[in-house]
């Protein structure tokens, strides 16, 4: 069983339109200014506080093809590039709990060998570029996200290498050393709390139709991976300045061999808030007034809820129709409509609440499936009635 089937894997399904300029882009900031290189990320706003973009072409680095290459732009300036070289979720795809032992036994040894080879090749390649073995630094020093990384100084750029045994190999290239050694964005590292609050609140967009929507929330597509919870967490936390990725959270949660079996995602949510220096309120049902306060402060809310393909179609179709007909309305949340809502027997799913419309009594939410699933709408009664957990980060 799967979510509405109109998504894409993060990079592998995209046509390769250009080749990533390796190794120059790993050691020369001048390459980051080249028009041809910047064009590979698509159109970027010069005024948006922050945008996340995937590179449109192939990237072969240190003998391995990257699974994804993603950049952060701050007010139009490229500030960081993250290469995911190997991710167990992407390699195995979605594995149902019932199959996890069989898959681990049959495909596990092959993945282990690939992990060791990739980790070795990437570390050697970075050491060669830097002319040193790298420096070990605790990126996060406690909790489920506790992680040491290797820092390399390559030319006039900095690189942070993250490896998680049998799960993840990725590295992030930055312009500055503080960006490499800290998991927090410059704003979150250095600004006063009031300034941070103002920066968050400045991203609330009040539309003429009464929508209050957060602008610029990044979407990280989960692909055919059991990653909705961790992808949603990454979208939330990157928006709030914690520079960790979906794959970091998946590895920390113990999502192994493509399965969430025995994983501990809740500990990772708490650890992410801690690493982001945020407080994290939690309720066992979505509470609109709490969500409204969070959105007003410029902070998205993570909701875990019951999900059915049938009901998801309605929300996806309505979002499409609403674009053409702003007077369109969702079904009233009457007794008949409630019978169509997903129940406890339905699938579990995680979504990011990115806005609301009080007059229409609608919650606006975004899925980790791609731009087509940004700012969908649901009556707040349904969000409350089908949710079983919600997280409200705050400063």
């Amino acid at each position, binding site marked *: *069983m799967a979510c509405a089937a109109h998504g894409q894997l993060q990079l592998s399904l995209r046509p390769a339109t250009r080749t990533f300029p390796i190794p120059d882009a790993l050691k020369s900031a001048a390459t980051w200014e080249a028009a041809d290189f910047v064009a590979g990320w698509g159109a970027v706003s010069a005024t948006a506080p922050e945008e996340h973009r995937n590179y449109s072409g192939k990237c072969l680095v240190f003998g391995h093809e990257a699974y994804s290459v993603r950049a952060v732009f701050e007010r139009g300036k490229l500030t960081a590039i993250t290469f995911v070289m190997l991710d167990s979720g992407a390699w195995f795809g979605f594995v149902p709990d019932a199959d996890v032992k069989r898959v681990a036994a049959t495909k596990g040894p092959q993945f282990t060998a690939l992990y060791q080879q990739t980790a070795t090749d990437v570390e050697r390649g970075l050491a060669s570029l830097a002319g040193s073995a790298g420096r070990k630094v605790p990126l996060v020093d406690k909790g489920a996200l506790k992680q040491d990384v290797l820092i390399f100084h390559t030319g006039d750029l900095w690189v942070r290498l993250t490896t998680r045994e049998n799960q993840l190999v990725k590295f992030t290239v930055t312009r500055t050393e503080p960006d490499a050694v800290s998991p927090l964005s410059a704003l979150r590292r250095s600004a006063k709390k009031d300034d941070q609050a103002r920066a968050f609140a400045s991203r609330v967009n009040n539309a003429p139709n009464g929508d209050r929507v957060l602008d610029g929330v990044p979407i990280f597509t989960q692909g055919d991976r059991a990653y909705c919870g961790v992808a949603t967490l990454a979208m939330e936390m990157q928006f709030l300045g914690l520079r960790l990725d979906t794959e970091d959270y998946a590895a920390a949660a113990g999502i192994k061999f493509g399965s969430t079996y025995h994983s501990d995602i*809740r500990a990772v949510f708490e650890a992410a808030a801690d690493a982001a220096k945020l407080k994290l309120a939690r309720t066992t049902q979505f509470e609109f007034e709490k969500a409204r306060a969070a959105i007003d402060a410029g902070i998205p809310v993570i909701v*875990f809820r019951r999900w059915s393909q049938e009901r998801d179609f309605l929300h996806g179709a309505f979002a499409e129709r609403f674009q053409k007909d702003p007077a369109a309305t969702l079904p009233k949340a009457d007794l008949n409509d409630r019978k169509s809502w997903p129940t406890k027997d339905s699938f579990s799913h995680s979504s990011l609440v990115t806005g609301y419309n009080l007059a229409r009594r609608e919650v606006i939410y975004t899925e980790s499936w791609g731009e087509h699933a940004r700012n969908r709408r649901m009556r707040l009664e349904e969000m409350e009635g089908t949710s079983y957990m919600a997280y409200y980060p705050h400063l």
Partner: protein
Amino acid sequence: MKTIRAAFAASLLLANLAHAVPQSVGNGFLGAVGIPFEKFAAAAGPWAQGAELKGPWKARAEKKGDVENFDLAVDAIVFGIPAAQVSAERVSGAVRRFTVRFDEAKMKNIKSSAGGLYAQVVANITALAGEPKASSPGGEKSFRYESSLITARKSGAKEVIVDFTPAK
């Protein structure tokens, strides 16, 4: 006892959080043709004289004059709901009708449609196409969507039939 209950509740929460849904890249009709069936059937293309019937279809043995009937040979999710059968009627080389049959008894996710399959089908068509253009006293509802007229009706206690015909 309280401690045991609290631990049990906590374990349920963790289990719920761990039970994630993947994002599929498509199978069945969507995987074969690249678009959902309702988008395919609502477009102008399939109704044109001589248009290719996209996807794997199997011709029925009987043929009456110029009328040919086909059954879709792969699964299809139509309006977000698994279809029990999808068929096409072609007359003199032009498709005249697609018929989708939903059968509550054959749906795996039956509990999500406990409110009534017909109500759910109609709600989902409405979400896509807007309010029905016509409703019959017998409960039949007709919608206009892109190049098609979509008509939904109950068929027996547990079945719903949806016809796509070219809009005039």
